[in-house]
């Protein structure tokens, strides 16, 4: 058994898993506060990455300024999507809400293919020369470490926001019960818009980070699909669960690749393995590790 390879893959899995966790968090944030399942999360990510890349390469802005502008853009984008597309569907059956985000997802896919092209492009080196650091005999790219670091910062910010700020409290209250929140003077509409704005913003950050690590292309949107196994494992309405689920799926993917490459040789196992796990989890523990079980009353 090739321990070194396994270890290397697991470290990759952890780092990629943290990014999945960040995207899963955005997904859960929207689901928890607005009861909308966002099938376009992956496209949000790609949009953030493309906008930032376009600002750096075509407009020639310095990276940090471009990054800042793309974040502002994503925030506005999230608000526009919520108000124009999702607001008319409040109170509609769940299938309509799911379908509208799916429609948004294929619309955005085609539009981004058209505007930004089908090819992968890479960011000019942002963190100086791309180098490696050696940790415990392993070579880890600095970009990977930076992404790990950023994921932790985002998670910390989420924690702080929900725990200690007024808006975070308002959002938790709205997620808990919209009517009660409204009667306490919280504007539910604003909270919904804010949830989408934050989610789009953070997805944009994740997109830029992934773009720096592995190049920007429309195939990054796959992350939007990988998020489903992650959130199901963690529990659909748990932010902590999203992070844990993301890390589990990241590790699992790389572990599946290891098993596949070393023993089974079936090829392509790592893309399907999360979905088998998803079905399994749904069968034995449909509310995931940290999700709350709904109790229905007639």
């Amino acid at each position, binding site marked *: 058994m090739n321990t070194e390879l396994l270890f290397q893959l697991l470290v990759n899995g952890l780092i990629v898993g943290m990014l999945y966790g960040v995207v899963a968090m955005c997904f859960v944030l929207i689901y928890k506060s607005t009861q909308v*399942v966002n099938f376009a999360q992956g496209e949000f990510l790609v949009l953030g990455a493309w906008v930032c890349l376009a600002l750096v390469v075509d407009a020639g802005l310095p990276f940090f300024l471009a990054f800042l502008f793309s974040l502002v853009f994503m925030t506005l984008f999230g608000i526009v999507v919520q108000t124009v*597309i999702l607001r*008319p*569907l409040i109170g*509609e*059956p*769940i*299938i*309509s809400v*799911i*379908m*509208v985000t*799916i*429609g*948004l*997802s*294929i*619309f*955005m*896919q*085609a*539009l981004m*293919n*058209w505007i930004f092209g089908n090819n992968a492009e890479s960011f000019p080196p942002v963190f100086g020369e791309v180098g490696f650091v050696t940790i415990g005999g392993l070579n880890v790219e600095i970009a990977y470490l930076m992404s790990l670091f950023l994921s932790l910062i985002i998670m910390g910010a989420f924690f702080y926001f929900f725990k200690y700020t007024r808006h975070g409290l308002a959002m938790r209250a709205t997620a808990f019960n919209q009517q009660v929140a409204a009667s306490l003077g919280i504007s539910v509409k604003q909270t919904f818009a804010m949830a989408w704005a934050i989610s789009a913003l953070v997805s944009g950050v994740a997109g830029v980070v992934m773009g720096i690590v592995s190049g920007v292309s429309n195939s990054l949107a796959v992350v939007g*699909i990988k998020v*489903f*196994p992650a959130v*199901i494992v963690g529990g*659909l309405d748990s932010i902590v669960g999203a992070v844990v689920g993301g890390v589990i799926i990241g590790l699992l993917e790389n572990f599946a690749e290891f098993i596949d490459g070393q023993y089974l040789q*079936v090829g*392509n196992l790592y*893309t*399907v393995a999360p*979905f*088998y796990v*998803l*079905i399994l989890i*749904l*069968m034995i523990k*449909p509310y995931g590790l940290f999700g709350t079980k709904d109790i*229905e009353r*007639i």
Partner: protein
Amino acid sequence: MGHVPNPRPSGDFRSTYADDNSLFPTRPAFYAMVAMVIAAIVIAPFLSEQLLFILISIGIYGIAALGLNVLVGVTGQISLGHSAFFGFGAFSSAYLSTNTGIPVLIAMPLAGLMTTAVGLIFGLPAARIKGLYLAIATLASQFILEDFFARAEWFTGGVYGSLADRPSLFGFILNTDLRYFYLVLFWTVVSYVAVSNLLRSRDGRALVAVRDHYLSAEIMGVNLTKYRVLSFGISSFFAGLGGALYAHYLEYVSVEGFTIILSISFLAMIIIGGLGSVAGSILGAAFIMVLPLVMETVASWAADIFPAMDAGKAYIKQMSIGAAIILFLIFEPEGLIHRWRLMRASWKLFPFST
């Protein structure tokens, strides 16, 4: 869901149970149906190749959409994996007709039955979950089946795909589009009548009850697990049948044809046509088939003015489907069939209608 499956204008009373249970709501509706089928049979030989192609596609996708509508529109279960079942039917029929010597015409419904079996397997876990979780589970089944198609070379030919012969009837080969059109028309009519018939039976009403309020349905004695799994089976059957027709029409089946985009298109068809409506499924299929052609023409006109549009044609087609889904959900969530009903009601009440 907030919508009535079959609204009737005031004053249209049914005085017997037989009336209420009839396959077609009125005699004229029945005659109109027969007239449309006869018209299709008579007109078909005079149509151009391209029109026939469009009609055949509408038939094939319409059958599959009909199946999906039983699952989504009637039972209220969401499936994002319908194209995988469609693909399974296509590969089954190709496999049966090439490897076992079963005549193609028999292999097609058999492929439908094989797909039913697979649908039941995936339906079993689905019986326990609903709504969002089900959507995600069927999304997983889409990826798992797609992966299976790429891997199971004995069954699908792997990445090379497999060949499917055109069917023949007593030595008469259905090798032209016109002849194939009649076959598709036959199956479309059979499926249409079968689903309409299902909806007026006890089983059909039980499915509607499961959609409208599953707890009440259970209390009324509807076996939830049975009906949820059953609706998966029924929907897979029509997906498989549609897939089989698709395979033998193209005479070649490849793995790339059955992606999530097709699943989304099926959902788009039933949403645009009208959830829970039999005629709506076919209308929606027609809309989704014709929309890209219309957009193509529009884009060509636009390209004369702005040459930059030319490169975007393929993208405009996909964008138009996405936009159609969003716009229909916001402005006409009950679909085209609802528009049609409004128009009909307005003719009926003519001088007094608004």
